């Protein structure tokens, strides 16, 4: 039952891995009244353990890469990573600078790439809408895998994360 509501209102987590702020303020602007990303049930949270969509901006710098991977691993499955802006997709102008490692998909698997420097709120909305579709298909995949196994134990209506099949998550990290 919880899975059903979850795909309808995913929460997003935003991390700046070394960007120039341009994309960050555009994410903030897309939460503002004119674009209002919250129409899709999206809420910007500061807690990785409650989030489903991970918005990453900027190329990965030496000091932020550990935090990036840490935040990614703390998020529960299923999760979708959206790389916002040219520098997080490919490195952009910051490619080959000495303190920039590389694009985001070297470290964590990226599902959606949003181009633009800086990505406009429309593009961010497009990206999040696409991420919602991917989240839904990922949830279905997981439910399918779960049916193959025993039914998860439900205590007080909360699905225990320990009971979730490990296989799907591992496959995700390999891709």
């Amino acid at each position, binding site marked *: 039952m919880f899975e059903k509501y979850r795909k309808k209102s995913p929460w997003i987590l935003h991390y700046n891995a070394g960007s120039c702020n341009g994309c960050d303020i555009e994410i903030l602007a897309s939460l503002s009244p004119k674009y209002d990303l919250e*129409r899709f049930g999206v809420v910007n949270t500061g807690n990785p353990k409650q989030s489903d969509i991970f918005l990453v901006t900027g190329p990965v710098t030496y000091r932020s890469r550990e935090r990036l991977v840490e935040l990614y691993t703390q998020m529960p499955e299923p999760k979708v990573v959206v790389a916002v802006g040219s520098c997080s997709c490919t490195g952009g102008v910051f490619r080959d600078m000495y303190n920039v490692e590389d694009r985001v998909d070297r470290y964590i698997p990226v599902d959606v790439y949003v181009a633009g420097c800086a990505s406009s709120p429309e593009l961010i909305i497009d990206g999040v809408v696409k991420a919602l579709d991917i989240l839904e298909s990922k949830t279905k995949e997981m439910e399918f895998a779960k049916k193959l196994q025993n039914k998860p134990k439900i205590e007080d209506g909360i699905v225990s994360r320990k009971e979730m099949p490990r296989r799907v998550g591992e496959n995700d990290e390999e891709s």
Partner: protein
Amino acid sequence: MKESFSKAFQNLFKKPQTIDYPVTEIKKDKDYRGLIEYCEEECIYCLKCEKACPPGAILFVGVENPPKNEKNKKGLKYHYNPYLCIYCQECVRACPKPNEALWQSNKKPTIGVASDRVNDEWFELEAIKK
């Protein structure tokens, strides 16, 4: 108190500020800086745009079946990566034939997904170039 109530009441009947974006399109100004577009027939293969581009999002790579153009002596093909482009219009300013061979449209770049392999193909091209 009175004022705030009347304001709240007025706001109830106002048009919403929000644009219902994916349903209603937002019209872009014609000068919006969107994707870079290219015309193969008009290009004179001076490679100025490739040199001018700050992140290197334009590449001319030699291929086996190059586009037929008398100016193209080295058998090059134009490649462009919208995920690397920073939309600064420097290539168009460098181009000797702007608006004919290379121009900036007001179209939005598309959203990439993991199966598009936006990076791998591009870095293969860069490896060939080197």
